[in-house]
């Protein structure tokens, strides 16, 4: 199926690519640009950080902003207050009301703080933000986030940066089946097959950063991710065969030679 006939719909907008990518941790700027290009992604995440006041003013937004839709995140925030202020600053700096909402509840695992995530989602939606929360692979949390107005839910496959893949595929499949808003698999993707699996399970899109940025050849991995997301999406739409415990011959059983 041609990508243009099956767009990702997010907060009333359409995107040809179902792959979102991060911009952190690439070996250098040229590799970042090459990887973003081959990924086919239209949405690229960025963080919001204090400006260095001692010079060194190169702006990532200036480099990427004219070519890609920048999606700011609240990475590193641990409270509703900090996350809301970061979102408000991001809106002012980038002129976008879209925010990838991240509120970390545990520094070791980088698991989200569900309680604060729900509260911050409510506040930001009220302020007119399009909220895309990074959350646990928990169905009830995802349903509550959608109830509070999240434009999508972004459950983790496994911990951020771990490359652990999708630890609980049945949980992700259930969320994708029940969610009223698009499900974007965020965090934990290690290689292309993880991205394909996410899409086969019914996710609307995949967001990955480390798996591409830290790959031996980031632009090549970006191309692999793009193909995997397209393949997984097509497989999901096509409908897989049920799994069986016994063999089922695929060739006709009649007219065997010598029978």
């Amino acid at each position, binding site marked *: 199926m041609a990508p243009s006939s099956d767009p990702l719909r997010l907060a009333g907008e359409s995107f040809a690519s179902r792959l979102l990518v*991060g*911009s*952190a*941790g*690439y070996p250098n700027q040229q590799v*970042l640009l090459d990887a973003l290009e081959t990924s086919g992604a239209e949405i690229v*995440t*960025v*963080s*919001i*950080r*204090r*400006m260095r*006041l001692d*010079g060194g*003013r190169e*702006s*990532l*937004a*200036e480099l990427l*902003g004219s070519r890609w839709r*920048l999606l*700011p*995140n609240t*990475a590193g925030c641990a409270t509703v*207050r900090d996350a809301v*202020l*970061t979102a*408000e*600053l*991001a*809106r*002012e*700096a*980038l002129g976008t009301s879209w925010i990838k909402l991240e509120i970390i509840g545990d520094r070791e695992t980088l698991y989200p703080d569900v309680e604060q995530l729900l509260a911050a989602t409510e506040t930001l939606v009220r302020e007119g933000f399009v909220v895309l929360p990074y959350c646990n692979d928990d169905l009830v949390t995802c349903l509550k986030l959608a109830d509070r107005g999240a434009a999508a839910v972004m459950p983790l496959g496994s911990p*951020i*940066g771990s490359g652990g893949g999708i630890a609980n595929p049945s949980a992700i499949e259930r969320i994708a089946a029940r969610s009223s808003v698009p499900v974007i698999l965020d965090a934990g993707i290690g290689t292309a097959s993880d991205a394909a699996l996410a899409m086969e399970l019914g996710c609307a899109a995949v967001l990955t*950063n*480390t798996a591409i940025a830290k790959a031996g050849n980031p632009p090549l991995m970006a191309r692999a991710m793009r193909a995997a997301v397209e393949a997984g999406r097509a497989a999901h739409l096509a409908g897989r065969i049920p799994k069986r415990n016994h063999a089922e011959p695929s060739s006709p059983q009649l007219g065997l030679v010598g029978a």
Partner: protein
Amino acid sequence: MKVNGAIEPEPAATVAALLERHGIAAWTKFVAVAVNGVVVRRDAWETTALGPDDEIEIIRPLEGG
């Protein structure tokens, strides 16, 4: 006055003056400022007065996941 978590030795009179002191021109794109947890829109940088107890955040987008 605290700017990005550090004590600012000399208080600045306005947001615009503070930015200018740090070499950030008013036309610099992708910069945002908050004073005491409230965003100050770009068109109010000139007119927003600062006091000695204010805490200012000056941010811009960076690489992120």
